[in-house]
């Protein structure tokens, strides 16, 4: 067995999300429409720390019961600061298929940590969850993320026209997917 840690990286590590400790920070993220629409509750408004605490507790309880969602807090190794959230959803173990989102608190965190966080997320998906397929949804205006996932081997599979409304305009919504054989091939090439 490869005993390289699933949760400990060079610059970041994954822990549980702790509604008591993390709610204030997540509340501050809700001023970003991006965060609320894509990763939180859908309807864009700000959420108070108390609301976030309650919502996160409900989400985590549901995740614990159904085992169809997993949440990880992404923290800096230096000072434990939470800089993002990794969420696996739509997990269907019988189909060996799941979706995921990777959220970063700001542009700086994205630049610094997105490569390592994605690498760890993919290893977890294919080597621990033993998935065959992993996918995510991106809006067509998020060119930075599109580049990140395309570089990591994801393929654009679907394009839902005008499915996203952002800054006063309609954009397309894209599904990106990667299959285990594709991911494994890239691992060999890297080594």
């Amino acid at each position, binding site marked *: 067995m490869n005993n390289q840690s699933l949760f400990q990286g060079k610059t970041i590590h994954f822990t549980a999300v702790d509604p008591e400790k993390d709610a204030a920070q997540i509340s501050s993220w809700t001023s970003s429409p991006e965060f609320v629409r894509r990763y939180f509750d859908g*309807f864009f408004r700000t959420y108070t720390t108390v609301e976030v605490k309650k919502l996160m507790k409900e989400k985590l309880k549901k995740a614990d019961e159904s085992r169809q969602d997993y949440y990880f807090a992404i923290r800096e190794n230096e000072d434990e600061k939470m800089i993002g959230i990794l969420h696996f959803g739509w997990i269907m173990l019988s189909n*060996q298929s799941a979706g995921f989102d990777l959220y970063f608190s700001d542009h700086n965190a994205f630049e610094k940590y997105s490569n390592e966080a994605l690498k760890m997320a993919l290893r977890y998906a294919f080597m621990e969850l033993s998935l065959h397929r992993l*996918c995510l949804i991106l809006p067509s205006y998020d060119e930075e993320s599109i580049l990140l996932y395309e570089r990591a081997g994801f*393929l*654009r599979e*679907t*394009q*839902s*026209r*005008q499915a996203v409304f952002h800054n006063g305009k309609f954009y397309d919504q894209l599904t990106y997917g990667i299959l285990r054989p594709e991911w494994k091939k890239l691992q060999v090439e890297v080594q």
Partner: protein
Amino acid sequence: MNNGFFKGNLVDLVPIDLDKDPENISKWDCDSEFKRQFDIVPAVMYSPILSKEWYEAASANGATMIIQTTKEKKVIGVIELDGFDWAARSAWVGIGIGEANYRGKGYGTEAMQLILEYAFQGLNLNRVNLNVFAFNTRAIRSYEKCGFRYEGTQREVIYKEDQRWDIIDMGILRSEWEERQKIWEREPVEWVQAA
């Protein structure tokens, strides 16, 4: 067309009868062909009690309706508009014809046309999308008839019968639906007047 959104020639869309319908739906659960076309999770049996709870929750969140034939008032399927994004004015639709004898005869297609009219004319949506399993060619034909367009293929999402299967994404925009209405409107009006 003015007698409400939910009345068609072959079928009406009616509210779920939470006392009677869960029993019908439980019966459809025993039809594995139906189950495999309707849902991606393993085909399992839900008790009428759980079915009832599920439909209670579903009809509270989205617009879930029963498809009932206009003539003999037979409950033949279920249709659901849900996943509303009120900023993008979009939603997804799901449909299943549980009664095997009523498949492939236009009942589902008409139910879908009714819900699209409701979505665009009643709810002011800009877009409706759906997923369909690639092996369900009959459904894909029906959705194309309603004006849905192919928007891509999610590869190898389903693992059943020792094989991987794709999921097809389809969508229809309000502008496309309106274009089609112009074509459809002419003929039925003349036909009604002649009769």
